[in-house]
């Protein structure tokens, strides 16, 4: 199910390490970038490419919070609620996001656009409260900024 380009990239990744298994996380991330998440078939394919038992791939995929073993929305929101963000109103931002998206943390909007996830400290406490949408970081968040990020400018930032 992976494109030949990604399969080739995974083979190249493996060559960067003295032991091919080291390429497992980068390979899974590459597969996930293409597919949005990691269906069992994709894990099996990565296992085959790196010559690993599929169990070795599954146990890694299920351990890390940013390897998605279930479908997620087009854009994943990681909202930090750890201490510095908590002290700066992350809970209000969380409630605002829940209200605007109509979902609870851990859920995906019915149109498949957004998944809202609670993140631990994102190492951006100078921007507290902060969040990452896709691969971009935003903060300090206010309800107005949240609206602009999610719904402003033709609905896409």
């Amino acid at each position, binding site marked *: 199910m992976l494109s030949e380009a990604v399969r080739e990239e995974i083979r190249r990744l493996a060559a960067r390490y003295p032991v091919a*298994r080291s390429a497992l*996380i980068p390979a899974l991330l590459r597969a996930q970038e293409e597919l949005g998440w990691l269906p069992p078939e994709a894990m099996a394919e990565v296992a085959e490419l790196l010559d690993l038992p599929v169990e070795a791939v599954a146990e890694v995929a299920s351990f*890390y919070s940013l390897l998605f073993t279930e479908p997620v929305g087009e854009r994943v929101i990681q909202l930090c609620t750890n*201490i*510095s963000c908590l002290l700066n109103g992350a809970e209000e931002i969380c409630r605002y996001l829940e209200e605007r998206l109509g979902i609870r943390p*851990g859920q995906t909007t019915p149109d498949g656009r957004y998944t809202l996830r609670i993140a*631990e400290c994102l*190492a951006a406490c100078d921007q*507290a409260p902060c969040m990452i949408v896709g*691969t971009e970081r935003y903060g300090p968040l206010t309800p107005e900024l949240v609206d602009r990020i999610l719904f402003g400018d033709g609905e896409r930032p």
Partner: protein
Amino acid sequence: MTERVLLRHVGVPGQEDIETYLRHGGYEALRRALRELSPEDVVEMVDRSQLRGRGGAGFPTGRKWKFVPKDAPVKYLVVNGDEGEPGTFKDRTLLEGDPHLLLEGVILTCYAVGIRKAFIYLRREFYQAYRKLERAIAQAYEHGFLGEHILGTDFSCEVVLHPGAGAYIAGEETALLESLEGKRAMPRLKPPYFPAVMGLYDQPTVLNNVETMCCIPWIVKHGPEWWLAQGPPQLYSVSGHVNRPGVIEAPLGTTARELIERAGGVRGGRRVKAFYPGGTSSRPLRAEHLDVPLNHESLAKLGSMLGSGAVIIMDETTDMVRVIARVCAFYREESCGKCTPCREGTRWVTQILERILHGRGRMEDLELLESLAKNMTGTCFCPLGESVPPSLRAGLEDFRDEFIAYIRGAREPVEMPVRIREGILAPGG
């Protein structure tokens, strides 16, 4: 105030480009080392600089390098860029602001210890830093600072950038090695096998933090005496209830009061109730300790630690029970589950704190929390579980009245901090 060192070029437009970095004296330390210094000289300089690791444990860097067997045919350098200790953001600031400074430190370290291959492990959430560093590495190869026969010498070195995938525990050095080997980030037993002797792929491995690496070019360029005369420079991540949160470079031993002042003061002109001096794994201190020098020794005397230098300021309106509950919930969330005291301890503690916040606490809960703190001290497999008792103890000893207020109903029950709330809702949580 001395001139900025580590942050000198952070914020300079285009600093991530090698041309700009070179214009500001970049890679001069590397040129100097390859021309004038033996690898042993570099190790000695770092040793004499008294540099201590900036990742949290504060181990002397020069000594760490000396543990690596000289004659080992294969050795590795692994840079820990998994910055995840709540309240810490100085590594990210360096990575985004001056990626070549890190690279120069990495190459110098490889030269000093006789290493030909380095891995830089960045947590997945560092998307921007990853892009910048990826580009910086390519530029360093193009300019002959990486690759074969660096600057025409016999020294060769390569760097591989490696992403994590979301796990705080990967910041623990042996868990990071497991992760880099393509496994679950679960810590290894040590002693007997410390990474310096048996690390990545069971080979001798130097593990250093991003900020530590960024100190090296300065020490090599100007010498250890100069370095010490600068403070030595230390990065403090200052956040929480301050007007201008940010990374502040100040001499090691600066007080929290001075840092708060430099961060624009406490928000709303309020007074400080408490602060974490070294991330949430350190014991939080009361306002009466605002004038304690934030260094390894002074903080150890108070049962706390400098850790990663993350100073989190909490003003007089802060609900310490909620803060401590949130901190404990973080460790529960991130516990890898390998050892019982951490896996069960973090869960029990969080459940009890939840109950107290919900107005269903009992006075016996305080004793139960005390006994859990005791049973999680010195029993956990790695520092993660051991990070819970300092907060818990501070809560029970210094802010006990706030716990009692919830138990006695003098304080209105409150909703959980959001992570705990999600934990309740999650299946099996």
